[in-house]
């Protein structure tokens, strides 16, 4: 693709452009680039996006077929153990790369406007570029160790960006929470990787997934339990990163980061890494069906739970955060019924509409001076029409309104679950339908509250959100003198009318809105045999839809095989039902939050216990607090006392010993050279005499 390089070499460069940008910004952002720090970031990620899209086209045109490898070099190779740094490219990788870099580019452009004048402007772009680098590494990795590197790397970038406004205690706490909760999953993932090495003696994807071991009955019988453990641990890793119950608690708090971060990392890309992991490891999961079913059940429960919580939240970003958790639940539901294609399709559409929703919300936040409480504003479509239109499209897509992208992908999942061979599949589908109703309701609750009705603006409207960042005293001075960021002071001085913001902000919104409206059709048209493009595009991916390898089942082995799906309910009927439910949800929301808002309060008062339960997010944070944090804190206190009295005591004694020795030996130090010589001779003599004694 690039002159002088092979296709795979060009692909290997995709992560490197953002890395280069991150390095450039880190080295020169503070002193040279300053408010131009966006340039390397946007250019880097745009080049990557172009390369990734051309890769997609290559696969589409069949210039590339199947799985492609390129080993760039061996990092460690020692005996039989080697860690190659290599890339693994198949349609799944290419699709992930394409939307990650494309959405990143749009969000980067948006950020230029959104973050303008912010203290630490360059820091933001350095972190964001670093994130894109790690995300691409994660997706491109051809072995588990490299994948783990990317996995930890995106976690690091997420930590840095959630804690971006590090002077705000809430941001610091949220960053720590995200990091610590992810630690649980990362540890599980690491252990899974260790076990994989023990079983397969390699970490390379192709050698694991296509190894003959996986078709060997004897091997499978011998390792059945181990494979279950591997899948279980991988699952926990995925759950932490993708915020599934019970490890979802970090994601809503992570909204403390700047809004483009929420859009990019905590909605469109990083949180789907868990889905990618399971989709990639589908060949292993199909050998551990109970775990796959657990994935589906947890996903289904999470989808429902998060949707109910979203109904009773008032902070716009938090609502979208819970909605993200809920939508991720849908994706895991699809994986649970071994329909990787449906999951990836939903990841794909979700990236567009959720990024759109977050960025539109960012525009609202920008215009309203950081205010996001939906009770404090109303009818703002009158002052920001473009944002209102874009948010409406995003809301329609999220709600799964017929004809918009979310509709097609969600429906794909529901029908996959309904028609899965697994007995409980239809249950998932029914819960999914109920969740779709709730989703439509909470989505349009936001839209009707904030954008329709009479114009009400919060007191802070017109000030810029980043000004909420409390700067250290010296930095304030720097900003005020116009040294670090010209224009910031102006923002403070004359608050202007809330608007859609600059072109850098609303242009990406419009592009994303087109995507959110249209990408769903890729799942219906454009494919071979009258199917969707996405299905035929992903069909070469090895075992993505979990058809187990042709194993000969002998009595005594428990290797479940995914039988051919049975059609229980026709997809068209399911589509009809879900359309009706969505319409119902929208209408209910319209009545309570646009036409007759007092009725909503009345109903809320009538259902006060339920509302309280949901407002408190099912008391899961409290559960963590009393079940985990407090006991651990007590344990920590106990250990601290032990440490202080016992360990410190021992250390004190040990520490005292050298001093004591020194004190005793001090006289010998007076004529040092002489005594050093004696010491050396004595050492030699002791050794020699000892050996002679032993050999006598």
């Amino acid at each position, binding site marked *: 693709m690039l002159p002088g390089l092979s296709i795979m070499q060009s692909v290997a460069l995709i992560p490197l452009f953002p890395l280069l940008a991150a390095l450039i910004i880190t080295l020169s952002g503070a002193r040279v680039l300053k408010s131009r720090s966006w340039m390397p970031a946007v250019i880097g990620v745009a080049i990557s996006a172009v390369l990734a899209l051309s890769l997609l086209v290559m696969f589409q045109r069949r210039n590339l077929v199947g799985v492609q490898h390129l080993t760039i*070099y*061996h*990092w*460690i*190779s*020692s*005996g*039989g*153990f080697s860690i190659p740094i290599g890339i693994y490219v198949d349609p799944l990788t290419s699709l992930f790369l394409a939307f990650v870099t494309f959405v990143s580019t749009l969000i980067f452009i948006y950020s230029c406007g959104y973050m303008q004048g912010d203290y630490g402007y360059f820091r933001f772009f350095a972190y964001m570029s670093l994130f894109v680098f790690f995300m691409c590494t994660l997706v491109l990795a051809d072995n588990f160790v490299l994948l783990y590197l990317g996995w930890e790397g995106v976690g690091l970038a997420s930590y840095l960006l959630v804690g971006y406004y590090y002077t705000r205690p809430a941001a610091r706490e949220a960053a720590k929470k995200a990091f610590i909760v992810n630690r649980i999953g990362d540890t599980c993932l690491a252990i899974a990787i260790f076990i994989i090495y023990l079983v*397969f*003696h*390699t970490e390379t994807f192709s*050698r694991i997934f296509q190894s003959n071991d996986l078709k*060997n009955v*004897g*091997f499978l019988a*011998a390792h059945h339990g181990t494979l279950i453990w591997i899948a279980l641990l991988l699952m926990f890793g995925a759950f932490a990163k993708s915020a599934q119950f019970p490890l979802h608690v970090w994601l809503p708090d992570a909204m403390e980061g700047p809004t483009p971060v929420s859009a990019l990392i905590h909605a469109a890309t990083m949180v789907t890494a868990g889905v990618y992991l399971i989709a990639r490891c589908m060949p292993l999961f199909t050998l551990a069906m109970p775990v796959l079913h657990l994935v589906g059940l947890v996903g289904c429960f999470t989808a429902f739970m998060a949707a109910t919580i979203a109904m009773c939240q008032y902070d716009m970003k938090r609502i979208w955060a819970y909605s993200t958790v809920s939508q991720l639940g849908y994706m895991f539901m699809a994986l649970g019924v071994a329909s990787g294609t449906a999951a990836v399709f939903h990841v794909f559409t979700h990236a567009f509409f959720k990024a759109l929703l977050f960025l539109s919300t960012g525009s609202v936040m920008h215009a309203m001076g950081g205010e996001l409480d939906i009770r404090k504003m109303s009818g703002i479509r009158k002052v920001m029409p473009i944002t209102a239109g874009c948010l409406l499209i995003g809301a329609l897509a999220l709600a799964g309104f017929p004809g918009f992208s979310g509709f097609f992908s969600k429906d794909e999942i529901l029908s996959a679950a309904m028609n899965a061979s697994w007995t409980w599949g239809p249950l998932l589908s029914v819960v999914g339908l109920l969740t779709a109703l709730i989703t439509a309701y909470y989505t349009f609750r936001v839209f009707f509250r904030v954008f329709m009705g009479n114009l009400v603006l919060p007191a802070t409207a017109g000030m810029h959100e980043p000004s909420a960042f409390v700067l250290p005293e010296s930095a304030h001075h720097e900003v005020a003198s116009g040294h670090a960021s010209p224009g910031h002071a102006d923002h403070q001085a004359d608050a202007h009318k809330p608007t859609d913001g600059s072109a850098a902000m609303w242009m990406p919104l419009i592009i994303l809105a087109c995507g959110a409206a249209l990408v769903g059709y890729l799942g219906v048209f454009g494919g071979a045999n009258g199917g969707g493009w996405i299905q035929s595009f992903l069909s070469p991916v090895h075992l993505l839809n979990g058809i187990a390898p042709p194993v000969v089942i002998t009595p005594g082995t428990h290797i479940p095989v995914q039988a051919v799906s049975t059609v229980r309910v026709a997809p068209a009927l399911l589509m009809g039902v879900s359309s009706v439910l969505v319409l119902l949800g929208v209408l209910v929301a319209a009545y309570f939050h646009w036409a007759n808002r007092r009725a909503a309060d009345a109903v809320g008062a009538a259902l006060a216990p339920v509302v309280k339960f949901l407002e408190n997010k099912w008391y899961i944070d409290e559960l963590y607090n009393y079940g985990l944090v407090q006991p651990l804190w007590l344990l920590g206190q106990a250990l601290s006392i032990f440490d202080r009295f016992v360990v410190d005591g021992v250390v004190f004694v040990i520490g005292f010993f*050298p001093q004591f020795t020194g004190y005793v030996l001090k006289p010998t130090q007076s004529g*040092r*050279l002489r005594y*050093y*010589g004696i*010491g*050396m*001779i*004595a*050492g*030699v003599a*002791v*050794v*020699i005499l000892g*050996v*002679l004694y*032993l*050999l006598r």
Partner: protein
Amino acid sequence: MAEDVNTSLLGLLPEIILLCTAAVVLLMGLARRDVLRRLTQWTAVIGVIVAFVAAYSNDVQSHTTALGTFLTLLTCGIGLLLLFSAWEMPFAMDPAHTDRHYRGEFFAMLLCSLAGVSMMAKVNNLIWLFLALELVSIPTYIVVATGRGQSEAQEAGIKYFFLGALSAAIYLFGFSYLYGFSGSTQFSAITAVFQSDISRHQLPWMAILGLLLVLLGISYKIAAVPLHFYAADVYQGAATPVTAFLSFAPKAAGFVAIILLLGLTGWHFSSGPDVTIPALLTVMAVLTMTIGNVLALLQRNIKRMFAYSSIAHSGYILAALVAGPALVAGGGWAHDGVAAALFYLAAYSLMTVGAFAALIYMQGKADGAEDIDDIAGISSEHPMTAACMAICLLSLIGMPGTIGFLGKLFIVQADLSTGHWILAVFVVVNAAIAAAYYLRIIAAMYVREPWTPSHVRTTLAPRFAAALCAAMVIGFGLAPSRLLSDIRHAADYMAGSSGTVRLTVFKGRAKITSHFPTGSFGRGRRSSLLTDPLAGYARRSRLAGDQNSCVVKHEFIFARPLKKDTAWSTARLLPPSPVLERNPAVVALRMSARLIVR
């Protein structure tokens, strides 16, 4: 011997170049004209570069061993960095010096010492070995004493000299025993005598005593217990660039000498009376790394701390040497203690020279700040240099992604695969202890507020050296393959000789018997021989030793029962080639795979 002269001389070309340059540099330092004197350093640098290129050329390489080439390249490379760190020694700063002779003398001495290190691996005679060791040491006595116009430096120089002479006496005494035992100073003759004695399964006490004395004497060069006492005082007393030099030159020379001397014995370690040598090495390694690290924890003077840390790193390398060389040439990293030691030596040189170079730059004056408080908060003023220092220190700790991590990894692997797990545990625990004092420096640079305003000179050379070291520490940490293959090649010089592999298939089980004539290497080496995924997954291996040989038996259970019940094959091990798998068990596995297919 006469016909050897030409070839040996060609093999020694890099050393000859270094010594000639030393002579030229000595004269240039005395030149009347200031312009010429200013060119002294440049001449030295050019000399080292020419020596490097010469060592790289095929003609020279073909006349020396791979180990010799590797050591020469390492010496010239690190020597170059050391020259940059020493670019502006006190003569430039101190108006009291007339700048007339010191400069030339100093750099000439450095070059002589480098020539000695470089010559080290090319010796084939005890006398030569002694000469090379002294060629390394004597110039260092001089630069320690004269490198800094302070009484402390002279005190350090005197101490270093006297104790060094003492140690030389000890290992020379040991040489005399070796001579008495073998009747020759020629390495090949000594090896032959050792071999014949090994086959009789006993060594006379004279040989053991000689080896013990030599090892103990040379442990002075590497600052290992029990001859480590001098290190702290001398490191602290010497000028910082000289300290940097001390942490490389004597150490590299000492370790290569130990490798050569152990090679004389054919690394016959575990059986028979000569168990004393590995036992001594093990005890020395444990004591050296532990004492070094614990004492380093207590220091506040950075140079003193580096002295103790240098002792500790010697302990790590000793731990690698205990594991011995690879069983067969080209063996994997897991078995090859010598390769691990050489790699760690290269890694340690890079990291420590980088840290010293950064320290030299930060000190401002060559005899300036030495206390940890003096570099507090320096990162705000000199972010790049502080970053280089931090990278080198992180590598010394052994952070993944740096060369130090790989070094420790290989040492631990070598120890584990040869059954020396106690050493592996000590290495890991000590690495954790060491993290405490290295991180203290990083914390001081980044977290604390500056105490005193720093007076940093404008000279770029040490800064350049530090940046180069930091870049290589990261670069080789991420892409070590080239360095690794060179080192493996160098270490193959020491690898065991070839053996036979015998495969027996019986009742669906394949037994592989590897037979090595060279004695045994401890109880280990079983797990690591069998890491080929091609093998069956259930396996059992057993190691039996008899008088003359080591027999490794592996039993494989294959997924499919084997058809032919009794088939066996004996194959002479082939010389290493990239096509064949490198280790004997894997060769055997390939054979078994072929059998199954048949």
